[in-house]
């Protein structure tokens, strides 16, 4: 640990040069050799069995066990022999042939598709006509795309927000490190945090100064795009992504301690919970009313004004919050497995 820190502080140029020269190619080559060399030098397994669960989680142990078995099955020998290369070549040839064949068939199809930019193509039909000619009066949104995805085809968009939510949950399952019941962190979390501290940049005047200027502008721009989603290009998804980019920039410059003051795991959970349930319930209301032929009673406002479009603006805000929280938590989970 200490060695790494001194390395970082004393010889940054050397580190950067090494990084540029070697890059990540080493990952590609001769990996088996590397791993086996590392594993031979691993410490004794029995010393690490303090708490059994944590020890089982330790990858060193798993890796050494795996390698022992590998040697026993002589798989490693097989890896080194030509068998793998021969199979690899056949596989490569087959895959290339398949890809070429597929491209050929698809190109053949493309040649018979409707012409690009043709105003009489089959896609220009009564559906498009109604969206364009009556979209503004039916949805109240000047941006027809926003009106289409949040009103005519809102069910897809509900599904899409659910995709984001479920993806965030899946990444939480994969990367979040569990706490103990009494709140004390497990060993893995401590390791991840110290690890993260090493790779987080030091307090950097230039970076922090520019972030202080940039973050508010980025956040404002994101909010502008969300709020104007029904009037101009953009909407919840792009605006949310921009906001999350601003948050990530702030996190990178100031670290988890400062960012944790306004954004914790609880913030994520509550914000995404509220916006998604608002979204689902609002849409459920309008679906129910629509399907049963009842008037929804939501005023559409004058098209073009900021307060128009019925439910579209609140929905855009909800989507924006879900997207920004999801993207931010992706980043935080990748860095240290939690907020």
């Amino acid at each position, binding site marked *: 640990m200490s060695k790494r820190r001194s390395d970082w502080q004393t010889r940054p140029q050397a580190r950067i040069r090494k990084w540029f020269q070697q890059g990540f190619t080493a990952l590609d080559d001769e990996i088996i050799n590397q791993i086996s060399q590392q594993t031979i030098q691993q410490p004794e397994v029995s010393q690490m069995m303090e708490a059994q669960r944590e020890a089982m989680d330790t990858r060193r142990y798993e890796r050494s066990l795996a390698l022992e078995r590998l040697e026993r099955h002589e798989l490693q020998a097989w890896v080194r022999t030509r068998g793998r290369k021969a199979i690899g070549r056949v596989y490569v040839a087959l895959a290339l042939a398949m890809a070429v064949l597929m491209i050929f*068939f*698809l190109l053949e199809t493309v040649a018979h598709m*409707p012409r690009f930019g043709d105003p009489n193509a089959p896609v220009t039909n009564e559906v498009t006509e109604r969206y364009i000619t009556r979209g503004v009066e039916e949805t109240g949104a000047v941006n027809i795309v926003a009106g289409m995805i949040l009103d*005519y085809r809102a069910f897809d968009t509900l599904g899409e927000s659910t995709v984001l939510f*479920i993806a965030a949950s899946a990444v939480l399952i994969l990367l979040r490190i569990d706490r103990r019941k009494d709140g004390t962190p497990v060993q893995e979390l401590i390791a991840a945090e110290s690890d993260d501290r090493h790779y987080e940049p030091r307090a950097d005047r230039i970076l922090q100064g520019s972030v202080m200027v940039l973050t508010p502008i980025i956040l404002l721009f994101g909010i502008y795009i969300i709020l104007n989603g029904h009037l101009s290009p953009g909407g919840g998804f792009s605006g949310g992504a921009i906001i999350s980019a601003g948050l990530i920039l702030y996190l990178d410059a100031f670290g988890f301690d400062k960012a944790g003051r306004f954004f914790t795991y609880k913030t994520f959970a509550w914000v995404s919970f509220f916006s998604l349930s608002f979204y689902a319930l609002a849409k459920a209301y309008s*679906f129910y009313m629509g399907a049963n032929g009842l008037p929804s009673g939501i005023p559409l406002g004058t098209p073009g004004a900021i307060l128009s479009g019925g439910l579209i603006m609140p929905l855009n805000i909800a989507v924006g919050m879900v997207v920004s929280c999801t993207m931010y938590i992706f980043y935080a989970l990748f860095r240290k497995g939690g907020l």
Partner: protein
Amino acid sequence: MSLVHNFPFFSILLCMVAGIFSSMLKKEAAKWVTLSVSLGVLVLSAFTLHLTLGLDDNYPFMMGHVPAPWGNEIRIGRLEALMATGVSAVLFLSLIAGFYHAPAFVSEQKTNLYCIMVDLALAAVLVLIYTNDLFTVYVFIEIMTIASCALVVVRQNGHTLVAITRYMIMHLFGSGLLLLGIAMLYGITGHLLMEPLGIAVRQLVLTGQYNGPLTVVIALITAGLAIKSAMFPFHGWAPDTYAFAPPLSSAILSGIISKAYIFVMIKFFYRVVGMELIISQQVHQFLFICGVAGMIIASVLAISQRDIRRMIAYSSVAQIGYVYMGLGMGNTAGVEAAVFQMLVHATVKSVLFLSTYELINVSGDRKRFRYLHGAGYRNVPAGIVFTFAAMSMVGIPFTGGFIVKLNLAISGMAFGGWVRALVLIALAMSTLLNAVYFLHTVVSIYRRPTQELVYPAVDPMPRYAAAAMLASLLLIVYLGVGSEPILQVIETGLKTFS
């Protein structure tokens, strides 16, 4: 429109909202919510089934305030209601039988995340069963893919991680093909809803316009769905995923989720392109060949496995082969048998995975056959359930599997020549192979255990879990004895499909 007409929509909404709420709940509460959601969906679907049995045709439900070619809609008929009822019943029983061993594979703080996945997977399955829009199909297939990935990966050992990486790569490739197909279909027709699409496609066939792209579209969408439902040559991801996932997840994945893809495919064939075009383009023969090959080759592979879970996973691939064989015959009787097989397989396979877990558990968590000796005595209910489920797989009379084989054979007899011969040979061979590996397993779980092996004492399975498994057993027997009304519902339901 009465309140009951809204029930399918309510069931979808219930699952989605429960999934969102589960993110804020504690472990036990989330479990209870998931259980009650599956029960609620079961009740709602049963009411819908009752309603649709009284209607002559299916009815649309607008998802929004504009009608079909412009807005989104779901379409409810008796076949859809039957599938939804079956799926939610199977899920409910599996959850009761399988939830109690959740602590063994998912940590306490992640239990509510697991419940989110179950809820949203059910929501996606329901949407795929009911929906009438191809792009909605794509979006919810993606939800289902993510949900099943997370269901598997709650147990994070090397095997599940590798299996799920393979799973994701294959499934994303499948989604890519599916989306490309949908994009092309949109490009040549200008519609996304199934009814207008069907009309437009028939128009194209009549005028002879864009027929080349249409063939490619059918090929792309069929291939995408076939990859996702583990049809035989594309089954590469399936055995490892099913074998190494937690038992409850395997039950959900192989029992319920893989059926939704096939249901979408049947819907696509009937409602969008029409079965006549499928037959004239020879797509059904491809499915038929793949189904037959899968039935035999996957069974042979199952025999060669030493791990009981992998054996069951391979048998799952073989059973999907039955579905594709029925679908590939192209006549109504064949498709009917295929749909019935989907119901039977959902019930049997989920209970098979869960009872296998119990047998492994009483044998000291060892999966090889020689350690399983005597497991049927150590856990009596699981042994009985496993034996009966295996009998249904083989196709003993009075079980669902028998009716499936009978119907497949009858619909095969309608053909002459090589199709009839192939159907009969495939059924006979597959029955024989099934008998070989399932009887071998049943014999080995009732064999006297070897002396030197010591089996650790484990907590007995809770009573409610045993009761749920026995209830699934009753369902299997019901499918075998009282199959006539169900087959009738399927037959009349398929007529309203096109």
